């Protein structure tokens, strides 16, 4: 565990899938172009050569169908992983995700459960425009019966995927396209993770930054710059947003008294509004020295133009600016 290696986020996802498939013959993968193509983002690469086309299954372009097949396979003894090529196409599969997978265990009174893992890359930054760049986690976080995971680094991408595969419930893992190619230091073995446990990525005392996915990386960079300005930022990554590690966030806010919530998704109705509401109606309300502040995506579909695209979601500079203002003005 102590020896570290360098690995991209995509490699970590691939390795976790391979570990699970080695260990458990019930695990298999279905998705569009996950076979010989190697995945639209190269996540699968040679996985089909290692495990064969029975366990790494290329499907037709039928998102609703393949998620539904995942539900059926999960109900009958398998542990399917379904890849949705871009998380935007979960829109095609919402019925099976929300009306079926999330509710079956409940609706049948516990007679069956749906251990299905759905992986889907989200986020902007690749010039893919409005239909291929959304961050839709808020939809899923609002659905009882689902668990929602957002890994922000390679270690978590692997560890949380393995945890998702151990879970008897449907879990949607929202990966990030920009992180796939990024390299991280990763322990020799993925640490055991538990869905619902967040982590303090960096300790600090002046304010708490809660961020998700790629914004965790940006927040860590921002914290570095803030430190140079004499501001000590604590950075929290909830890692799973449903269930949410509320305790970790509240304790931090009680300590720092200020909180900046950072997400790539559109602000209005986004997941960070839940975090904000949770904080302000909690015991931590009294500890707040400043109003909770959200820094989120602009209220727009993601544009194609690269400058506009960058401007549409929080960048490192924006986080530094907002965090500094929060500390200086209050």
């Amino acid at each position, binding site marked *: 565990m102590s020896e570290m290696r360098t690995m991209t986020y995509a490699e970590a996802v691939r390795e976790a899938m391979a570990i699970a498939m080695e260990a458990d013959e019930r695990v298999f993968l279905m998705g569009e172009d996950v076979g010989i193509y190697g995945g639209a983002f190269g996540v699968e690469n040679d996985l089909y050569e290692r495990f064969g086309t029975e366990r790494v299954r290329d499907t037709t372009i039928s998102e609703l169908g393949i998620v539904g097949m995942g539900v*059926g396979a999960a109900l009958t003894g398998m542990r399917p992983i379904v890849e949705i090529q871009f998380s935007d196409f979960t829109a095609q599969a919402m019925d099976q995700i929300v009306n079926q997978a999330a509710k079956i265990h409940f609706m049948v009174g516990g007679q069956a459960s749906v251990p299905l893992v759905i992986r889907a890359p989200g986020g902007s930054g690749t010039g893919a425009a409005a239909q291929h760049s959304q961050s839709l986690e808020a939809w899923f976080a609002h659905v009882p019966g689902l668990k929602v995971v957002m890994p922000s680094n390679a270690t978590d991408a692997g560890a949380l995927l393995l945890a998702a595969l151990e879970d008897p419930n449907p879990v949607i893992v929202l990966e990030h396209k920009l992180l796939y190619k990024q390299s991280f230091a990763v322990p020799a073995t993925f640490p055991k993770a538990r869905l619902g446990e967040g982590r303090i990525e960096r300790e600090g005392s002046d304010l708490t930054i809660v961020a998700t996915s790629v914004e965790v990386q940006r927040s860590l960079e921002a914290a570095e710059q803030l430190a140079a300005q004499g501001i000590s930022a604590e950075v929290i990554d909830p890692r799973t947003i449903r269930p949410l590690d509320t305790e970790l966030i509240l304790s931090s806010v009680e300590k720092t008294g200020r909180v900046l919530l950072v997400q790539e998704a559109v602000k209005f109705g986004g997941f960070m509004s839940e975090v904000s509401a949770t904080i302000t109606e909690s015991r931590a309300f009294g500890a707040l020295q400043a109003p909770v502040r959200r820094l989120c995506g602009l209220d727009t579909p993601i544009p194609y133009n690269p400058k506009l695209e960058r401007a549409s979601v929080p960048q490192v500079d924006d986080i530094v600016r907002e965090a500094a203002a929060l500390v200086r003005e209050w």
Partner: protein
Amino acid sequence: MTVASETTRATAVLTDMWRIRLFEEAVEDLYGRGMMHGTMHLSIGQEAVPVGASLCLEDGDVITCTHRGHGHTIARGADLGRMMAELLGRENGYCKGRGGSMHIADVATGNLGANGIVAGGLPIAAGAALSQKMRGTDRVTLCVHGDGAVGEGAWHEAMVLASMWDLPVVFLCENNQYGMSLPSLAAYRVEKLSDKAAGYGMPGETVDGNDVDAVAAAVGRAVERARAGQGPSFVDAVTYRWRGHSKSDKNLYRSKDEIAEWRDKDPIARYSGQVLEAGVLTAADLDAIQAAVRQEIRDAVVFGTRGAEPTVESMLAGVYAPVDEQGAEDRA
């Protein structure tokens, strides 16, 4: 077939058809008396489809049902008391009162459940069949759906995927000719719904859905094909629902004559007549079957009405399946 086995079969068929009919009549009655709530989709008049199809299934086979799922659930052997309890919303019901009629399931008998979503069960059935195939079993999945479901994208995607992978699934269209108020055949612009199967490289067959034997024969062929690893089939069983679509139905889209005409094709009366004529069962046998089922239904109602009301606490505890921490630790 020997006389004895013919008698056994006929008795079983009639018992199940009467169970479906009388169970639903009891449900209707409870509903009318305000003792049952929600909405109900009754399959009275369609009994030959579930009973005929079930004759082809064995232990370990899987089925998925529609919102109109009482018939198949009963035909697969579900306990009438626990079914009634579920429709009464009780803790001793199949779904602990959480699901009701539209989500009734009996997973122990391979019945993954009714589905409130039109065509929602199709991809699930294809997935169960994939699982059966990947696990190396020779089990099959029967996917029951309505004619209205054929208009859904989910229907198409399941047909495409099942066909691509030669999955052991039988798509059984319980074709009562209407998707709520829409006459399906006119909408789909084909002569018979089984004409659609060719577009998926699948055999398709249209049969009289009020004839138990015809249904059993067609589904039997499809099941054998699936068991032999030859892939999916489509069976279109034409039948009719006597009642409205659900409780909100004013029945404006069907004529009285049409309904009367189909009442005359009552699958129970028809099958009873056949076995009487063939000398397989006597009139007394028929009466005895009905009487026995009536008692079962009375018992079921008693069982159901005596069930406890579920609690909010148990409901909330039932949203997620518990994570087996120990098991997880072991595998890490």
